[in-house]
């Protein structure tokens, strides 16, 4: 099209030249007429009108720009959708008052097509800035024009907001600790600000040993690092006490540390056990998953005598080497028994798993005995147990050499009954907490994809062991639910009534009045004529 041509071209210039020549010709041939047109009433008044109109519009535009710069706005919503609620205001006040908490920035990744949302949400962001005592700031970034920055914060779609703490030492954004929020929802934003600026430092040590399965626990590690912002390291126990190690045990800079033993086929050395004992004696936390002892040596770290002698003496728990099978409550094979007996008040159900609905799937587990009389200052709690039809096989070669499923069926001499498969213990004097499960299946990736509670219980075990829930509750600000947030509800009859009123009565009523008015006017007109 001509309008989109980059060059004007000969036709365009020729047209202009022709027009100018025609105008000159007209002035030369009819000067009186041309003068009359230029000085006539219409043009004078018209010209003045045009100037005055432009002046008025410019004046209005100037006033508008001045008013816009004042940034005067009122949030009329009863639910305080675009201004801070009392809960958020209180949280921001405590954040502002705490000099140890760093400044933070809200990076709102809004695309160009979300300009309206920018206008709307900036009202909320402004309120955050006002109430944070200047510790918060915000900026809008177009993720389509800054894709690298967006990917740096894990932004996957426009509209997400990254809350990033500012490193007080360098003044730079602590990118790795950013908290990402999907929408400008106040509850999420407030909690993200609290999370990003919180000083909580937690670390989980996944102990490496022979045939340990820490590498198969990526889903759990992902929860720890990405969801809770923990530090996760794989190391052996002797490394942890090395003076040169980056994350030494009992580092006071950490608010919580937990040793996770992800299976293993060999017993701990005396040195390693000594490190563990020392750690727990000083209030350390341990989560132990027993690896299978169905190996040529028929040994595992969890069932080793030295460790269990220590656990029994200090925490009242002992893991036995017999393998537990179940024919009536199992997944596909008796070697995969299912536990539905979960403690209704302990971590397995009180932190997230619905009571009575949690199911744990074990793989060739051992079993635990809980001392009837716990050691001094120790509280022991059973977390999970097998069904009553479970049985124990002490001759492991019977399982390892089995040629058919029938060979795994219970035989006379096998001990049958309900056995403990998971337990926790706490020393109230030292603060040490341990969680023991008799199979690594609770935390390994292979079982996290099945419709069982293993993954959640694994995460909850870490939460309970480190008291992380207390920390989270400090930085989680619950918002009061308002009546405006409750979904509307209309019964079938209501819907029919609404339909009748809004589609039939209202429009047709108006039309009826219109017809009546038209008819009346028509009759009146006829009478007049």
């Amino acid at each position, binding site marked *: 099209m001509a309008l989109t041509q980059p060059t004007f071209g000969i036709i365009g210039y020729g047209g202009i030249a022709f027009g100018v020549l025609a105008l000159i010709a007209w002035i030369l041939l009819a000067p009186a007429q041309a003068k009359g047109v230029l000085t006539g009433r*219409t043009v004078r*008044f*018209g010209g003045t*009108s*045009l100037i*005055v*109109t432009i002046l*008025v*519009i410019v004046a*209005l535009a100037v*006033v*508008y720009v001045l*008013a*816009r710069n*004042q940034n*005067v*706005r*009122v*949030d*009329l*919503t*009863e*639910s305080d*959708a*675009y201004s801070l609620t009392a809960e958020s205001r209180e949280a921001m006040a405590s954040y502002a008052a705490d000099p140890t908490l760093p400044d933070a920035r809200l990076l709102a990744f809004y695309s*160009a*097509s979300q*300009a*309206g*949302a920018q*206008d*709307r949400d900036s*009202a909320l962001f402004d309120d955050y800035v006002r109430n944070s005592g200047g510790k918060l700031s915000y900026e809008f970034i*177009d993720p389509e024009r800054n894709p690298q920055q967006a990917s740096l914060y894990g932004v996957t779609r426009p509209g997400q907001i990254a809350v990033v703490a500012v490193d007080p030492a360098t003044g730079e954004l602590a990118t790795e600790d950013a908290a990402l929020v999907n929408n400008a929802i106040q509850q999420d934003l407030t909690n993200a600000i609290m999370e990003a600026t919180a000083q909580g430092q937690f670390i989980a040590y996944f102990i490496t040993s022979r045939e340990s399965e820490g590498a198969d626990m990526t889903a759990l590690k992902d929860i720890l690092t990405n969801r809770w912002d923990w530090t996760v390291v794989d190391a052996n126990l002797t490394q942890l006490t090395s003076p040169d190690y980056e994350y030494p045990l009992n580092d006071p800079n950490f608010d919580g540390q937990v040793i996770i033993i992800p299976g293993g086929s060999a017993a701990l050395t005396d040195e390693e056990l000594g490190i563990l004992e020392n750690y727990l004696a000083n209030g350390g936390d341990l989560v132990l998953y027993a690896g299978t002892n169905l190996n040529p040596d028929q040994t595992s770290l969890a069932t080793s005598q030295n460790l269990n002698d220590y656990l029994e003496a200090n925490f009242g728990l002992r893991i036995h080497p017999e393998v537990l099978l179940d024919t009536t409550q199992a997944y596909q094979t008796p070697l995969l028994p299912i536990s539905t007996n979960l403690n209704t008040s302990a971590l397995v159900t009180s932190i997230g798993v619905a009571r009575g609905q949690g199911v744990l799937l074990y793989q060739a587990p051992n079993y635990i005995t809980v001392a009837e009389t716990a050691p001094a200052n120790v509280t022991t709690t059973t977390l999970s147990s097998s069904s009553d039809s479970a049985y124990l096989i002490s001759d492991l070669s019977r399982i390892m050499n089995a040629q058919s499923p029938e060979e795994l069926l219970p035989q006379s001499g096998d001990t049958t009954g309900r056995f403990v498969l998971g337990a926790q213990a706490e020393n109230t004097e030292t603060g040490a907490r341990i969680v023991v499960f008799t199979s690594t299946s609770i935390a390994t990736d292979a079982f996290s994809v099945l419709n069982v509670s293993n993954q959640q219980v694994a995460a909850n075990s870490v939460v309970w062991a480190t008291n992380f829930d207390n920390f989270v509750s400090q930085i989680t600000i619950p918002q009061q639910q308002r*009546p*405006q*947030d*409750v*979904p*509307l*509800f*209309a019964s079938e009859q*209501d*819907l029919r009534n*609404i*339909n009748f*009123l*809004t*589609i039939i009565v*209202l*429009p*047709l009523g*108006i*039309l009826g*009045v*219109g*017809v009546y*008015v*038209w008819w009346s*006017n028509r009759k009146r007109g006829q009478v007049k004529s």
Partner: protein
Amino acid sequence: MTDMPLGTLPTEAQVEERAVEIGGAMPFIAVFKREFKQYFRSPIAYGVAFALFLFLGIYFNGFVSQVNGQMPADTTLIPSIITFLMFLFAPLLTMRLIAEETREGTLETLMTLPMSEWQFIVGKFLAVWAYYTVLLVISLIYVAIMSMIGTPDYGATIGAYFGAWLYGGAVLAIAMIFSALTEDQIVAAFLGAATILVLYLSNTAASALSAQSPVLANIVRELGLTAHYDATMAAGILRLEDVLYFVFVMIAALFITTRIVEIRRWRS
């Protein structure tokens, strides 16, 4: 008015007295009353209202059925829909206002009355705005229904309705320009609808322009109608700049309309 011999110019006091007869101290009130009554005698106004409420009714039913038990009661929806539909209804309501007077030659007669063009235009505008206000008030029936089946956010409702009221005033004023510009009502309606639609879609245009020129995109956006309503007033945020935008658009549009009527008068 006291009787006066033919050929004698009225005194200032007599003109004032006549003005009071027409519309009190503010003559535009007479024009307003005349036009406002005219709306309730005109089948077109009822036709417009019928079409509007039929559409709103169908839309409202669909919305309630869809969100029943899932989402909170959203009373800002109806005013938002009305503002969108105004590109269609505003020209229909205003196309007659001045174009008809011009075509039938009654504009000349009206201009002989002791009132300025500005008062004449303002009177006409207030009449159509008042009619639009009546439509908005009727649409509160949807708020009442929502409040029976849920708990609407009345603060947001007030913001959305206030915004829709101002928005309506602005687009009606814009549509009036074209009624003054041409004698043909259909042409006036088309031009008005096109202009309002362009202003409505300016947000989309701004998005398209943002990659090339962010400054130009911002200006285009600021000039448009939706940037001052959809994301702010319709959501319950009242900004001074948005209120001023709509008020200034009304003033500017009425000013332009007045100039057009004046020019027409001088030309004749």
